[in-house]
């Protein structure tokens, strides 16, 4: 295409056709302008076209192309000046394609050595790039050829033993019925909700307030009145009165008896589901009616990650009701009812642990701790509420748990990653595969109860980047091994004692501290999604060990009281407790020795050596740390559980926390 002289002369045109080197020197030379070069030679028509075509066919950089064009144009101009006609010049020129090739090669040879080396370098780089891209394309094709295969219905697997449990052995219908009845027995007149139409959740809140009030108005804690809680209650204008509390507990006694019966059954027997519960009675109980229209399975098998466990709070509330009723029974001198309540609370704790999810274990532990507190408080303030037979029965209830020390079962917690793996990793049929691009959106969808978009083409960016990202993350087999290793260490820690537990091991993944796997993008990518779903297991294991330690303490205190009754005075040492009453006294979680014990100021006192790991003869801890540093203060007296932050072989002695911590004191 020819351009006019006017166009050639414009500053913009010249600027666009000036090499950068000239511009740097302040010259607007315009010497990259091929058309101007041809025009300057005075060539038009076929000769100009020939020069233009040959110059372009050389595929040389613009500056070299213009040089070639200038030489050719000058040649034709000289030929015309010598009287040769256009046709002859074109014919004599020869094959323009071959000419362009020869011109290109010779111009390339003319370049400086550095430019030629650079060109070779670029060529080598280009070839390498093509090879790499080719290999990557093969890898990408291979990546997209494989798909996740959802083989196992883990939800059904979880529910299989539940479905196999006879209806008569299932506790949940009885618990639900009892809790429904208790809800309906709450008298709104007793509270600020009077006159309002209350749903089940609102009624549960009222029950909780009554239970709180009842707990405070029954027996005192062994450590003395809970002044803080009593103060808060005194500030509440509409706190339930003692009469109202008594009235409610009188009314709910039949329901509590129903709870006791249910808690004695072998299993909880509630199927776990994603979305809506399968039992219409559950839908009504949990107030899920409004979800009926939108719920429904979205794929072949629902994921365990989307399982809902709305019954856990209900069971914990039932446990609190029973523990509180036990307190009231102790205060009323009704040891038999108290024992029945404690037995039932321990039954609920056992039932809620199956299926063995981590959260279920923690709910079970929390109910057990409520029962333990009742016993410790009762042994200090109302020991006479229990007959010898009552004490023997309580000891038997807790001894059952002692035989089952590894009750902290996380087997089903492992299923979370197994289920996630079958949905978000490809399946090569041999237990391996790679992470797919769906995982990010998929986890979010599963958490909301939705499914996984397994079908559909990837975006261009997804196609390109997913194989690279998959190679940066762990493959399925390795991820599974790390996950199982994590839970193996948890199981091992659960079998250990508090003074033996390796906390660093518990909070690590693949030998690296958990926080390190999230510290940089490489760790986040490599361990994704393991690091997202791995539970805060170290705290959970410590909670379990705290429960076990507290249970051992309770057994010891019961044996202490039974020994006092047998010999007529407090024994001088825990090691002399009769073995028919207690196989072995509780151990100090800080050093594994028998918990320290003495008669101080005429009363029996049991203490732990505390975070300083030194026995100060029961002299209570003096926390010298600045509370404004934000660290939790250690109070004494206290519970063993409150000290669990300081347990473990890898915990240094806390030298600033001088003194012991009293964990039970008689009166």
């Amino acid at each position: 295409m020819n351009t006019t002289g006017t166009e050639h002369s414009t500053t913009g045109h010249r600027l666009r056709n000036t090499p950068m080197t000239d511009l740097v020197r302040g010259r607007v030379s315009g010497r990259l302008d091929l058309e101007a070069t041809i025009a300057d030679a005075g060539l038009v028509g076929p000769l100009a076209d020939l020069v233009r075509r040959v110059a372009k066919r050389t595929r040389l950089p613009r500056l070299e192309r213009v040089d070639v064009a200038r030489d050719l144009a000058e040649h034709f101009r000289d030929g015309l000046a010598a009287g040769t006609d256009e046709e002859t010049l074109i014919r004599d020129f020869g094959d323009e394609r071959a000419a362009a090739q020869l011109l290109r090669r010779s111009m390339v040879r003319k370049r400086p050595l550095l430019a030629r080396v650079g060109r070779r370098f670029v060529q080598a780089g280009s070839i390498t790039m093509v090879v790499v891209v080719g290999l990557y394309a093969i890898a990408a094709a291979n990546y997209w050829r494989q798909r996740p295969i959802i083989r196992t219905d883990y939800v059904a697997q979880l529910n299989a033993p539940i479905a196999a449990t006879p209806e008569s052995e299932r506790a949940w219908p009885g618990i639900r019925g009892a809790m429904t009845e208790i809800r309906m027995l709450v008298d709104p007149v007793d509270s600020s909700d009077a006159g309002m139409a209350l749903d089940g959740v609102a009624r549960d809140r009222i029950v909780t307030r009554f239970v709180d009030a009842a707990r405070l108005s029954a027996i005192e804690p062994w450590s003395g009145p809970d002044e803080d809680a009593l103060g808060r209650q005194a500030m509440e204008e509409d706190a339930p009165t003692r009469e109202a509390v008594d009235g409610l507990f009188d009314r709910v006694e039949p329901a509590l008896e129903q709870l006791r019966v249910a808690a004695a059954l072998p299993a909880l027997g509630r199927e776990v589901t994603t979305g809506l519960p399968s039992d219409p009675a559950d839908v009504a109980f949990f107030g899920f009616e409004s979800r009926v229209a939108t719920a429904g399975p979205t794929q072949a098998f629902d994921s365990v990650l989307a399982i809902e466990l709305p019954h856990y709070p209900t069971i914990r509330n039932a446990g609190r009701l029973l523990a509180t009723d036990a307190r009231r029974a102790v205060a009323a001198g009704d040891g038999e009812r108290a024992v029945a309540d404690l037995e039932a609370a321990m039954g609920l704790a056992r039932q809620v642990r199956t299926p063995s999810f981590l959260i279920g274990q923690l709910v079970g532990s929390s109910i057990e701790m409520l029962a333990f507190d009742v016993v410790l408080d009762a042994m200090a303030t109302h020991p006479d509420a229990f007959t010898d037979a009552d004490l023997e029965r309580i000891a038997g209830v807790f001894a059952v748990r002692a035989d089952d020390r590894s009750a902290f079962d996380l087997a089903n917690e492992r299923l979370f990653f197994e289920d996630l793996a079958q949905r978000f990793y490809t399946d090569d049929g041999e237990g391996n595969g790679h992470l797919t691009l769906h995982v990010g959106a998929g986890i979010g969808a599963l958490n909301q109860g939705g499914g996984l978009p397994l079908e559909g083409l990837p975006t261009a960016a997804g196609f390109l980047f997913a194989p690279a990202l998959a190679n940066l993350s762990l493959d399925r087999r390795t991820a599974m091994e790390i996950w199982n290793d994590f839970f193996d260490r948890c199981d091992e820690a659960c079998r250990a004692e508090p003074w033996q537990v390796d906390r660093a091991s518990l909070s690590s993944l693949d030998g690296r501290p958990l926080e390190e796997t999230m510290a940089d993008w490489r760790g986040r990518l490599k361990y994704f999604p393991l690091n997202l779903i791995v539970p805060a297991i170290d705290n959970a294991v410590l909670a379990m060990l705290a429960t076990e330690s507290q249970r051992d303490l309770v057994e010891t205190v019961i044996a202490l009281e039974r020994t006092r009754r047998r010999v007529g005075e407090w024994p001088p040492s825990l090691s002399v407790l009769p073995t028919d009453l207690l196989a072995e006294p509780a151990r100090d979680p800080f050093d594994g020795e028998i918990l320290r014990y003495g008669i101080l100021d005429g009363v029996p006192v049991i203490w732990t050596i505390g975070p300083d790991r030194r026995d100060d003869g029961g002299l209570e801890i003096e926390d010298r740390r600045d509370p404004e540093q934000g660290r939790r203060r250690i109070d004494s007296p206290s519970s063993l559980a409150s000290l669990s932050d300081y347990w473990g072989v890898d915990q240094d002695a806390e030298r600033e926390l001088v003194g012991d911590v009293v964990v039970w004191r008689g009166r």
Partner: protein
Amino acid sequence: MRIERELMRGAGPVAVLSLLSRGEMYGYELVEALDRRTDGVLDMGQSTLYPLLYNLEAKGIVESERRVADNGRERKYYRLTGDGRTRLASDSRQWQAVTDAMRALGVVTGRLASVWRFA
């Protein structure tokens, strides 16, 4: 008569060097001179000449300079370098040896040999 391409590839450069040994010339002038002096035997078009000149330049055997000619227009003139003269002398001796050998074999006649002695 047109010369085979392979022969032209060997003869072209020494012919151009030979012409430039007399003084600097521009492209069209070289084509004309080759055609005229060899009776068209070594006639080469632009498509051969300019790549040849660029190659000789790349080897440092010739050098070029663009300047305004007598007619007032810019032209690129080519001339031999010192290396070019050395190369011409060497090539001439080789061609002489080849020609003598060919003559001894009766392949070439005195006429063709005389063509290569135009310098």
